[in-house]
């Protein structure tokens, strides 16, 4: 990655550098802000080194610059990676609503930016970005010389085309929620062939991260509307050679990909990646892993992890995330409109027990706030206590002295959701809640996830809390809850503070805003979050250079296959 060090350094970076020097923020926080504002990672590391401070408030001690790269000589080329994962029916990438779909097509199409496993965002198709001091004008510089498979060069006009798709309400992309209130298509300005300027209506901090929202792959303007057809021009390292919904897909190496490997030739190292759909039953995937028929599987759950972790032929990589099973209550429906009822239910979560039963103690405790301790802006909170007596009293106060019976919608395909629900069902009994589980297949749950009164919705990881909160807890300009606001919870104070946080660069200032946001959501919010999940990558040890990503986003671009290490070979 080349970086023009003479380019202007964002004042926010200098400010953060000062904070780093004073030891008020961690090195990791600093790197995040610096890269977010357009400094490349190596450059930011230099700045950090200038700051030099050891950290006192360090979250997990991970060194983000530590490269997981081996000596170049070790890399071998060739090999096919076989992945056990659902091969889903999809059409327009902007409307992906599953990580599985995105994982398939990120092999073929690329994002403007890329967020790594440490939640730090780098430019990808972009060469760099720059933000104005007030964070309302973002200038995106495209990397030059990237060729589509049809021979066209990637230019700024193509980026504008994609913004047009994302921001078009008719397309119905979840990306729209990220930009709602900040950007319209008129604000997307093509400056020259390689420069796009985003003129925002309000300050926004997480622009680079949003460019890596999983449906936001860059398509050629000639996109035919169906991503499953292999004929669409693409920029990515692989091309799609086969895609059979519910069965399999194959991605074959492209010879002239623009990124080079450590051995000086174009990436990727692997010849092909194959996706195998073994149905919805996870035990089939585990059996295929145990017998070596597939090399890795998507999203092993805790039972799968326990089945595979002691297998000598499998290596496991793990990472904590901001992914969670969110118990959400619709505040526009009785009796959940009463905050006392919601609070009472939250008090009935025995978090330790849920973590132990549903996750075998693998994960972090949640605080009924959709901000995870792994996210940089998380303001530390006390763990809410399990208090069924208090819950009972509160329920009585809310007009339910004899307790409350309700249905909880649960998708049975998620074993941990069922475990959570069953544990809650029991732990909430002394609190006066009589919970009936309304169970359904996962697909059926996704049909009603925004509609059901009380349900447990899986939410995936986001690197920043300010990226997630606007998706689910605000209203649009017309005052209607945004499409993914499944609880219809719109809180004046919360929305204002959130808007402020989205435009606040100073980490301490933002964290103090977050402390308020978290307090509000904890006190009167619509969700109960007991646990933050840990995720695992399970792999055949012959595949080198694997890194667990908290969103399980994986392109395996720099993964290579060493046949000597393959226990099955």
């Amino acid at each position, binding site marked *: 990655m080349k970086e023009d060090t003479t380019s202007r350094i964002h004042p926010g970076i200098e400010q953060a550098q000062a904070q780093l020097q004073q030891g008020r923020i961690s090195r990791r926080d600093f790197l995040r802000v610096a890269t977010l504002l357009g400094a490349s990672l190596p450059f930011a590391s230099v700045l950090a080194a200038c700051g030099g401070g050891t950290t006192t408030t360090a979250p997990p001690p991970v060194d983000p610059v530590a490269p997981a790269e081996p000596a170049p000589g070790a890399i071998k080329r060739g090999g096919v990676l076989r992945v*056990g994962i659902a091969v889903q029916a999809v059409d*327009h990438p902007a409307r992906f609503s599953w990580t599985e779909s995105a994982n398939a097509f990120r092999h073929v199409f690329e994002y403007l930016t890329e967020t790594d496993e440490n939640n730090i965002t780098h430019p990808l198709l972009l060469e760099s970005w720059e933000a104005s001091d007030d964070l309302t004008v973002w200038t995106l510089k495209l990397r030059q010389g990237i060729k589509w498979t049809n021979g066209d060069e990637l230019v700024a006009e193509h980026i504008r085309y994609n913004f047009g798709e994302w921001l078009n309400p008719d397309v119905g992309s979840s990306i729209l929620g990220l930009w709602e209130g900040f950007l319209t298509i008129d604000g997307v300005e093509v400056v020259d062939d390689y420069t796009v300027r985003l003129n925002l209506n309000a300050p926004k901090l997480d622009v680079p991260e949003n460019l890596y929202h999983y449906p936001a792959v860059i398509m050629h303007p000639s996109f035919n*509307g169906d991503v499953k057809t292999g004929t669409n021009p693409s920029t990515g390292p692989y091309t799609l050679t*086969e895609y059979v919904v*519910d069965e399999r897909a194959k991605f074959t190496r492209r010879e002239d990909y623009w990124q080079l490997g450590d051995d000086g030739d174009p990436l990727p190292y692997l010849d092909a990646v194959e996706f195998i759909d073994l*149905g919805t039953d996870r035990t089939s*995937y585990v*059996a295929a892993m145990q017998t070596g028929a597939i090399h890795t599987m998507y999203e092993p759950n805790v039972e799968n992890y326990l089945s595979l972790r002691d297998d000598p032929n499998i290596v496991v990589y793990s990472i904590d995330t901001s992914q969670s099973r969110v118990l959400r209550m619709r505040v526009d429906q009785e009796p959940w409109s009463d905050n006392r009822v919601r609070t009472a239910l939250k008090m009935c979560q025995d978090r330790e027990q849920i973590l132990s039963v549903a996750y075998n103690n693998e994960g972090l405790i949640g605080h009924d706030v959709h901000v995870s301790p792994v996210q940089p802006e998380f303001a530390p909170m006390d763990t809410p206590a399990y208090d069924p007596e208090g819950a009972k009293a509160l329920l009585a106060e809310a007009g339910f002295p004899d307790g409350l019976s309700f249905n909880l919608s649960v998708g049975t395909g998620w074993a941990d959701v069922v475990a959570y629900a069953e544990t809650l069902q029991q732990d909430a009994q002394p609190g006066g809640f009589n919970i009936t589980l309304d169970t359904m297949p996962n697909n*059926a749950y996704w049909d009603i996830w925004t509609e059901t009164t009380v349900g447990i919705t899986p939410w995936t990881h986001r690197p920043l809390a300010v990226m997630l909160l606007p998706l689910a807890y605000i209203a649009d300009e017309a005052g209607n809850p945004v499409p993914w606001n499944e609880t219809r919870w719109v809180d004046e104070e919360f929305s204002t503070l959130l808007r402020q946080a989205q435009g606040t660069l100073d980490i301490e200032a933002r964290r103090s805003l977050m402390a308020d946001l978290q307090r509000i959501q904890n006190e009167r919010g619509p969700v109960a979050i007991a646990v933050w999940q840990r995720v695992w990558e399970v792999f055949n040890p012959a595949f080198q250079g694997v890194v667990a990503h908290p969103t399980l986003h994986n392109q395996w671009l720099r993964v290579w296959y060493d046949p000597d290490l393959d226990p099955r070979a």
Partner: protein
Amino acid sequence: MLKLLLRRFLFLIVTLFAVSVIVFAISELAPGDMATNVLGNTITPDQRASFNAQNGLDQPALTRYRRWMLGSDREAARLIGAPVDRFYDAENNQTGWWVGGSEGTIYRHRSEDGETILQLERDTLPDGKLGPSRIVTLGDEIWVTNDEGEEIFWGVNEDGRAAMWIRGLNQSEERLTRAGWISTAGAPSAYIPLQKGLLRGDPGISLITRQPVIETLVPRLLNTLFLAGIAFVIIMPLALFLGVIAGLYEGRPLDRILSVGGLVATATPEFASGVFLIVIFAVWLGWFPGAVVIPPGTSIFEQPQMLILPIMTLMLVELGYVLRVTRASMSEVLRTNYIRTAVLKGLPYWKVIWRHALRNALLAPITVIMLHINWLIGGIVVVETLFGFPGLGSYVLASALNNDVFALQAATMILVVIAVVSQLLADLIYVYLNPRIRYT
């Protein structure tokens, strides 16, 4: 004999007709609105109305049943005044309906204001591909006055549905395109979703994948027939053989082991025995693959070793039943007077068994085997799910769980046809083997 055959065949037709009505009726009676089931209940009433009209769901049940069975293309062709057919567009990897015959130019229509009709034309090229499209504005002469005095035009719209525009009626509708819901003006007033009908091999479009059901169904069916065929060929002779052995040694230890073992295996659900088999043979011993993994570019036919555990699982469940029936039949035959007489007459024991007993003893089990195909199908749904096998059984289950009504109906009908035809075969074999019926 011929009369009997005809009669059985007639029964088969009547049964299948009744089955199709039952399948149709159950989905019909299911609570909830199909549009909501499929698209989620975030859709607006306008979107629901448009979806229902476009997919013909607003039509009376009888009409929908007729179209489902017999197709709607002829009816549409009559209204349009020209043939309609399916054409494959290689560029978009899509098969769709157009106006036009097998050769020459094909047409689709669109209107932006309900007043002028634009005609989309493409040439069919000799290599089977479609030429570039051009747009032609049609003149006034296309409008036809109907009984109500409206000027109407029937054509095929861009989504490949037969559609009727009323002149001057510029209404808007919601269309679920590949790019999501779009509100368009100049919408048609009536639709006929085009399909050839189940009887002509086209059960409609899957509501989930938006691809013709038949495209998924055929390869899945072949996979399943492959699995079931091999299973059948291995399991049934084995079951008959073991059953005969058990029958010959009735009451002795060998018989006890076989019949009790068969019973226990049959009584253990395949979803449990399958997992135990996987753990023992795939994980511990590492002899066979534990899941059916078919890499892209290959087919199951090239990798029969994938089928070992699924077939063993099916065998455990299916074997016992046939074994027990054969055993009972054998022991009964052995007790009959003519066998005793034959043995007492001094004929060699094995000759008696081979010449006389076996034929009569197999009569009952063979019928049972054919009737047992219904059971085999049940086992196959479970086994396919268990091993991730891409067959019809797992397709049926997935369609059922996803509310993919058309796919479920089609797959169910195919499996029922297989079951019914095998029952007919059972009847015929029985007739053939049983002289008493054959000569009456």
